[in-house]
Each structure stands twice: as structure tokens, then as C-alpha cells.
């Protein structure tokens, strides 16, 4: 019997692994697709997956409803740019027509303005971080690959800092991925005594290469937790040490904990003397942050700070996983730097049960595909690259705020065409979304590749390419975009929906038409084999699909720095200019910042803007993830929406009582930059004085036409109305999405469409004809 395809009663069964769509990080849920009459009927978890072991999230259990939903767009379509914003003007076209429109416009822009006047847009975390860059650099031959999240405030900063400070790929929790058979019981693995979780709720978010519930597996075996979070998450409730800090103050906390470890002589002398560059200067810096000061800044008890630091220094090995809360602040680079040093100085880097490190020197190696082959004159035109080398040295993208400014102003040159794959800027990553929706009217042609009509495409899209989902495509899933490959698995196509194509197929189709020499593969499978081999796995994609589990975990080498595996010349050490972990980072100094970590108040806070804080007296964090949704996706899936029906803002009961507000009432969340309407969730999960507001909201049931709040009511619901454009750290990274200020007050009623959902739309009836 085939390992991946069989008949079971009335069902055809196809084994696949998953990445995105639906929106998801590379968790690699292995699924058995149960197919009936050519449609996905239901899914079951595949117990043969050594990491997830048959477990499946609610979102991926809902894959059939997602793939078969009436909102799904399954044929290419176009709309005359003069009718942007009008949902009734879309018309069905063929793939050839769609590609002809793209190719014709590409040639015209390349000729009249230069290829740099084409910009691509991408969404976070998805199965696209090789696809979109390759389309950008090799098909369009433009240097402008853009992730439209202000200050690049997700993953890129953490990953880049790891490159600059450690000369290594992204650090990850050691959850025994390298031992697929015995896992935690393998003699070459050591269970972490303690796991540090900073600004992250991985049970829900499963980010980038971490299956979140692996932490629960470790807890059951005795791992203790240190959780640094402004909210009492489930993990915080199980933590030995829970440090509930004021949002945005992490750097002060970690500097003071390093201070305790160094001051009390609890650090790993051998490691620090041999492998930490600038240790003495760093020790001096830490002395500026005694626990008493950090307690005042962060709101965390001084004795708790000391006890946590001591425990971390003594109980080894300690592992660590960090979240985008690190990135979403102007002080994020310094925060990432000091968290890495907190791991390094006690000897937890790259040891079994410690902090895993990738061997690479680039932020996400797959996101550089095609870059090297661009002409130097084109490379030099990448927007923001010269101004922010800390961004452009490790990341292959633009600086996102400057990219949006370029579209708005035609400076340094106009952007005439955009290509957006699975990104929904005005509902999710972009600050000041109403302004962005106006700016994005400026290019002549805006192409979207997606699964449903989004607020962004409704507002400014001209061409829609329908994308295949998990279960509908052959592909690969691998963690950390080539920077730290913990596993690789095969995505296998079970069904075809309408005329949808996978992102990789769209990439190849465009490449073969526009610049075939840079797309030498003759078929999708030939390309996937090339990709697979690039992750260090031998054999063909078909071999992987046909194998017993369809899933491989490349061998992992611990303590690479000791054996010459972390440098490019084979010498022991780290892949940095000094060959050491850089507590003192000369490159940061060269780029105009302090070479060592420091704490800086958020740009808007009770301390830095006391006058504004009087008017907007809450410290606001945003963006906590939901079991139901991946950022701005899935609001149209009924079982998921039932679990989390409205955008919520969490507030402590003391504050609610003082303000005369009650649970489940609609409120305005407002500051000097804008406002949005959310539903109040009164809960002790946040401290008094702090609120957490959900992100990524829009209302599919509201329809695509602007009735006063933008397409699908997006500007009523979008918390990013309150976020600043062009406000990020000195090195080009970090917008304060997680440490803003705001006020909350009662709204007169909820959104006008509160009663009843989901309401089926009929504005794209022609898309349903053959479903």
C-alpha cells in the first residue's frame, strides 16, 4: 500500500503535511485528508508525525470548511482600476489573460521607469518566504520586496540581531526535534530544567518553527517555566517565575537580571572568557540597571527579579523562546541583544536542552533567492537599504515605512505596479490603514493573490489570482525559512478547487513567462526537489512524499561553535567579525547606535509623554493571538468565529469599575492617532492601567463596499488606526505596536451590523457557479 494515498471505505485518503494557507507558521500539522466526491470531507491528525503526533489545532481541523467556503474565490478575475472600491465590477478571466496583464505591465514599467518601480508585498510567517522574493528578484527583476509591517516588527529584527550578535540563525527552544524516534527520552537529549518564554504565547501562535504544545510535553516531564509577559497567560499560570512587566520595558528587566548574575558571580566564567566579546564593558553597562531601578521601570517586584536571575543562572540547561513582543518596540534591537546575552553568559547557547542555533548568517536564507543575480545598479535602488543597513544586511527587504512613503510621494522614484501575495495590509500589518488605502490607489496596477476577497483587495485591487490551500497543492514545509531547519515535510495535493494554483505554481508560471533563464526547473516537482535539497535533505520531493512518514528531521549538531561549525572558515567560534558572541557589537556602533544593549522608554508612555498620558491613560499592548484566527484570516469560518466572535479589548476589573464600564459592551479605543471600536473583555489577565486590544479585525459579513468604515467595516475594527507610521528604532526596526497609550470609553451601540452573522454574501456569485 502507498504510504500517502489509499482508499478507506467510501473515502479516498491522502496524507499531507501543512503550512499555509490557511494562514499558519510552519508547524507542520500532519493530516490525513478524507476526500469524497472530489471534495475534502474531513481531516484526521496523522499520529506518525513525530512532533505533533496526531494532534491538530482547531484552525486546521476546520480545513474542509475553509477550503470549501462560499467566500472562496476560485477563478482569476479583474476589475478596471477606475472602479477600485466597487465590489460589483469584478469579472472572471482566464489564467492566461491574468498573466498577460501582469507581463504586459511588467514590461512597460521596466522600460519606462525601471524594474525598481515594481514592488511586491508579503504576509507574515507563511509558505511564501521563498516564493515572493523569487518573483520579485528573478521574475520582475526589482529589488523592492516589501513586508508592509511598520518597522519590520515581526521576526526580522530578532533574526537579524541573532546574525549580528551570534553569527547564527534564529534561536529556538530545544524540544527534541532532532530525535524523531525517542524524542525527550533520547540519550543525546537533555530535558531543559527551565524554559524562558519572553513576550510570546506559543500555545496559540505556534510560531516559525515551534509547535507550541511541545512546551506542555516538557512541563509534564518536569521543565520549569520563566514567563515574561504583561498578561496572565495559561503558561504564566503554570510558571515557577512569572514576571508581569509593563509592556515595552523588557530591556530594563533583562539588563538588571544580567546584573544580578554577574554581580553575584553566577555566570559561566569559561564561556564568557572564551566566547563573549566585550564582557567587561557589558558588565559595566549592567551595573547601571540595579534590580531596584528595573523594578521601578517594569513594575516587577525587585525580589522576584533577583530570584528569577539566580534560578536561571543555576538551573541548567535552560532553553528560551521569544516572541514578536521583542520586535514591536523601538527598543527592540537592544531587547533582543540583551535576551541573547542573558542566555549566553550562563552557558545555555547550543547545548542539549539549551538554546538551539541555526548555522546560517542570513535572516531567512530562502528570502534571498534570486537577489545575488540582480545587477549591482538595481540592488543599490532597494528602498531604505542605504539608510538602514541593519535592516538590509540581514534582511532582503525594503524598510517598510520608507517603502510606503515612496508609493505616497514618488520619491526616490514612483511605484507603478504592486504584486501582493497573501497579505492584507489595511486590515493587519500596516499602521494608519486609512492613509495606506489612499496611498495604494497610486500605482497603475495592483495584483493580489489570495483565497478570499480582503479589505485591501476590495479597496485597491485590479487583478485577483486564486490561490490553492493546504490539501490542494504539492509543496514543502520547513521551519525558520532555511535559517534553522528542524524538520522538512511534504505537502501533498488531495483535491483541486476551481482553477486555484499554488503560490509556487504562480511563481513558476510568471518566471517562465518573464525571465525563464532564472527559472530553470521544468516542472513544479523538479523545483520542489531543488528546494528540498537546499534544506540539506537528499533525494527527490517524490521520495519524501512516498516515505513512511513524509517527514524528515535533519541531524542537529550541538555546540557548533566549539567544533568550527558556526563559522565559514571552519575555525572554532561564532560567525561574527570578532568570532565571538558580541556583547559589544561594533556593527551597531558603525550603524549609528550604541554597541551595547540599553533601555529606552517607549516613545509614548507615562514617562516619556506624561501630558498625552493624562488624556490616554492606559498602556496598550495589541496583537495577542486567537485559537480561531491567523492574524486577519478566518473571520468567515463559522465554527471559528463562534469561538471568538468580536474584536476584544481586555481591561482589569478595577479599571472597568472605576470607569463605569461593563463586560461585553462596545467601547472606543482611542489615542492621538485614531480610534477603533472593540468589545470590552473585563478580566484580571491584565494589570490595572494596562489594556490589550486585538488586531487584524474586519467583518466579512459586511461586504466589500465602503459604507462609511471602509471595505468590510475594516476601519471600524482595526486597532492599527491608533498606530504610528514612521516611528521606529534608530536602526530601522521596531514600531511600538505592543507599547502604545490609549483611552477607552463607551461606544453608543456596537457596529451597525452586530446582529447576526455570518451573513452569506452574494457579491461574487459568479465565483460559486461550479462549486
Amino acid at each position, binding site marked *: 500500500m502507498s504510504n500517502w494515498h489509499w482508499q478507506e471505505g467510501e473515502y479516498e485518503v491522502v496524507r499531507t503535511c501543512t503550512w499555509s494557507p490557511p494562514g499558519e507558521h510552519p508547524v507542520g500539522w500532519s493530516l490525513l485528508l478524507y476526500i469524497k466526491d472530489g471534495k475534502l470531507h*474531513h481531516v484526521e491528525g496523522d499520529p506518525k508525525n513525530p512532533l505533533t503526533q496526531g*494532534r491538530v489545532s482547531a484552525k486546521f481541523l476546520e480545513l474542509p470548511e475553509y477550503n470549501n467556503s462560499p467566500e472562496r474565490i476560485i477563478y482569476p478575475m479583474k476589475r478596471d482600476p477606475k472602479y477600485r472600491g466597487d465590489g460589483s465590477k469584478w469579472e472572471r478571466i482566464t489564467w492566461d489573460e491574468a498573466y498577460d496583464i501582469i507581463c504586459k505591465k511588467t514590461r512597460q514599467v521596466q522600460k519606462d521607469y525601471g524594474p525598481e518601480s515594481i514592488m511586491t508585498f508579503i504576509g507574515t510567517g507563511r509558505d511564501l518566504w521563498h516564493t515572493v522574493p523569487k518573483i520579485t528578484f528573478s521574475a520582475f527583476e526589482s529589488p523592492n520586496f516589501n513586508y508592509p509591517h511598520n518597522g519590520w516588527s515581526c521576526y526580522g529584527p530578532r533574526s537579524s540581531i541573532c546574525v549580528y550578535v551570534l553569527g547564527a540563525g534564529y534561536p529556538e527552544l530545544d524540544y527534541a526535534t532532532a530525535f524523531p524516534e525517542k524524542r525527550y527520552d533520547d540519550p543525546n537529549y537533555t530535558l531543559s530544567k527551565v524554559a524562558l518564554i519572553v513576550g510570546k504565547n506559543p500555545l496559540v501562535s505556534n510560531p516559525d518553527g515551534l509547535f507550541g504544545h511541545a512546551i506542555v510535553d516538557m512541563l509534564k516531564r518536569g521543565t520549569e517555566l520563566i514567563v515574561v509577559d504583561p498578561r496572565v497567560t*495559561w503558561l504564566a499560570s503554570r510558571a515557577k517565575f512569572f514576571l508581569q512587566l509593563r509592556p515595552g520595558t523588557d530591556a530594563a528587566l533583562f539588563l538588571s537580571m544580567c546584573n544580578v548574575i554577574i554581580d553575584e558571580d553566577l555566570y559561566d566564567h569559561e564561556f564568557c572568557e572564551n566566547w563573549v566579546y566585550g564582557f567587561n564593558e557589558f558588565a559595566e553597562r549592567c551595573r547601571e540597571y540595579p534590580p531596584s531601578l528595573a523594578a521601578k521601570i517594569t513594575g516587577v517586584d525587585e525580589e522576584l527579579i533577583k530570584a528569577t536571575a539566580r534560578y536561571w543562572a543555576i538551573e541548567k540547561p535552560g532553553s528560551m523562546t521569544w516572541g514578536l513582543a521583542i520586535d514591536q518596540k523601538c527598543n527592540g534591537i537592544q531587547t533582543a541583544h540583551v535576551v541573547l546575552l542573558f542566555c549566553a553568559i550562563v552557558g545555555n547557547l547550543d547545548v542539549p536542552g539549551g538554546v538551539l542555533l541555526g548555522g546560517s548568517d542570513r535572516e531567512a536564507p530562502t528570502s534571498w533567492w534570486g537577489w545575488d543575480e540582480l545587477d549591482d545598479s538595481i540592488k543599490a535602488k532597494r528602498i531604505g537599504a542605504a539608510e538602514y543597513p541593519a535592516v538590509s544586511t540581514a534582511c532582503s527587504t525594503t524598510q517598510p515605512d520608507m517603502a510606503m512613503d515612496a508609493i505616497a510621494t514618488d520619491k526616490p522614484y514612483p511605484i507603478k505596479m504592486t504584486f501582493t501575495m497573501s497579505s492584507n495590509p489595511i486590515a493587519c500589518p500596516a499602521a494608519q490603514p486609512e492613509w495606506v488605502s489612499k496611498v495604494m490607489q497610486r500605482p497603475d496596477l495592483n495584483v493580489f493573490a489570495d483565497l478570499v476577497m480582503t479589505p485591501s483587495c476590495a479597496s485597491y485591487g485590479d487583478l485577483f489570482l486564486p490561490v490553492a490551500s493546504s490539501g490542494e497543492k504539492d509543496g514543502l514545509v520547513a521551519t525558520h525559512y532555511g535559517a534553522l531547519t528542524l524538520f522538512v515535510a511534504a505537502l501533498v495535493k488531495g483535491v483541486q478547487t476551481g482553477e486555484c494554483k499554488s503560490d509556487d505554481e504562480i511563481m513558476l508560471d510568471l518566471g517562465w513567462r518573464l525571465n525563464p533563464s532564472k527559472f530553470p526547473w521544468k516542472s513544479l516537482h523538479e523545483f520542489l526537489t531543488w528546494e528540498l535539497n537546499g534544506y540539506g535533505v537528499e533525494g527527490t520531493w517524490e521520495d519524501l512524499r512516498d516515505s513512511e512518514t513524509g517527514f524528515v528531521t535533519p541531524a542537529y549538531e550541538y555546540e557548533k561553535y566549539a567544533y568550527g561549525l558556526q563559522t565559514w572558515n571552519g575555525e572554532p567560534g561564532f560567525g561574527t567579525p570578532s568570532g565571538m558572541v558580541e556583547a559589544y557589537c561594533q556593527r551597531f556602533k558603525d550603524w549609528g547606535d550604541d554597541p551595547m544593549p540599553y533601555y529606552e522608554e517607549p516613545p509614548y508612555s507615562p514617562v516619556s509623554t506624561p501630558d498625552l498620558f493624562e488624556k490616554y491613560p492606559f498602556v496598550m499592548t495589541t496583537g495577542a493571538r486567537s485559537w480561531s484566527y491567523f492574524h486577519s484570516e478566518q473571520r468567515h469560518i463559522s465554527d471559528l468565529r463562534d469561538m471568538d466572535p468580536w474584536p476584544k479589548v481586555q481591561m482589569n476589573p478595577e479599571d472597568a469599575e472605576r470607569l463605569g464600564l461593563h463586560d461585553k459592551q462596545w467601547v472606543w479605543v482611542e489615542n492621538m492617532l485614531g480610534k477603533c471600536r472593540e468589545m470590552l473583555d473585563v478580566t484580571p489577565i491584565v494589570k490595572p492601567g494596562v489594556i490589550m486590544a486585538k488586531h487584524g479585525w474586519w467583518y466579512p459579513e459586511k461586504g466589500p463596499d465602503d459604507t462609511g468604515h471602509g471595505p468590510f467595516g475594516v476601519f471600524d475594527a482595526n486597532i492599527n488606526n491608533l498606530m504610528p507610521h514612521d516611528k521606529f528604532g534608530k536602526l530601522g526596526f521596531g514600531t511600538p505596536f505592543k507599547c502604545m497609550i490609549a483611552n477607552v470609553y463607551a461606544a453608543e451601540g456596537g457596529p451597525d451590523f452586530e446582529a447576526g452573522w455570518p451573513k452569506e454574501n452574494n457579491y461574487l456569485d459568479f465565483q460559486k457557479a461550479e462549486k
Partner: protein
Amino acid sequence: MAEKPNMAEGMLIDYSYCTGCHSCEISCKQRFDLPSERQGIKIHKHGPIQNPDGSWELNYIPIPTEVCNLCADRRAEGKKARCEQHCQSFVIKVGPLDELVKLMSDHKKQVLYNVTSDKTLYEPQF
């Protein structure tokens, strides 16, 4: 007709580690194709509430409803109950009560359910 549950069987929940991820709820709801307002197993929440010693208590406890037939038909085919299969924390175990009682004494914060109904309210759809 759906197979009736065996009265000598039940469901053990280790709620020390239930994270409230909803995989059990969705698994069951799909299997019986339940309407929006119905559940075959429903997660209840207690907390977060701060204890006098400063620690936090937060519990999620799934409760099977009268829809549940302990997946007797699936288990007869050698599969796990659908909620047990997909539970992200491996905190659900369905089986003979006497075996579950033994597992229960292993550590704190566990709850054992007997069969919830001897009727068939909904037919499994797969």
C-alpha cells in the same frame, strides 16, 4: 445507528494541562455535524484568579455532553476517540473505567466522567 457507549467505560481529563485550545470541541462538533449552539464536549473555564501566595489559578475543564457516545464506533475500528486524537495536550483518555481510575491516582487535578447518556441524540457523520 450509532453504537451505544459501554456503561463500564468513561473519559478521564487531566486538567492540569488542558490549555483550552478547542481541538476537542471542534473534533466532536464536526463528527456529529452539530448546529452552532450544540457541543459534544464543552470547555469550561475557571480563573485566572490570584491565590493568597501570589500564584495564579487558571483551569480549563472539558465536559462531555449527552451527545458523546465515547466514539464507540471509531474505537471499534481501532481509532482513538476523535477528541482524544486531536487534543493538543494529550489530556483526554477514553477507556474502561477501572483502568482510568488507576491513571487518575497518578497526579492531582484530574476528573473522571462516566458515560453521559444512553440515548443517541445525533448520528455520527463519519
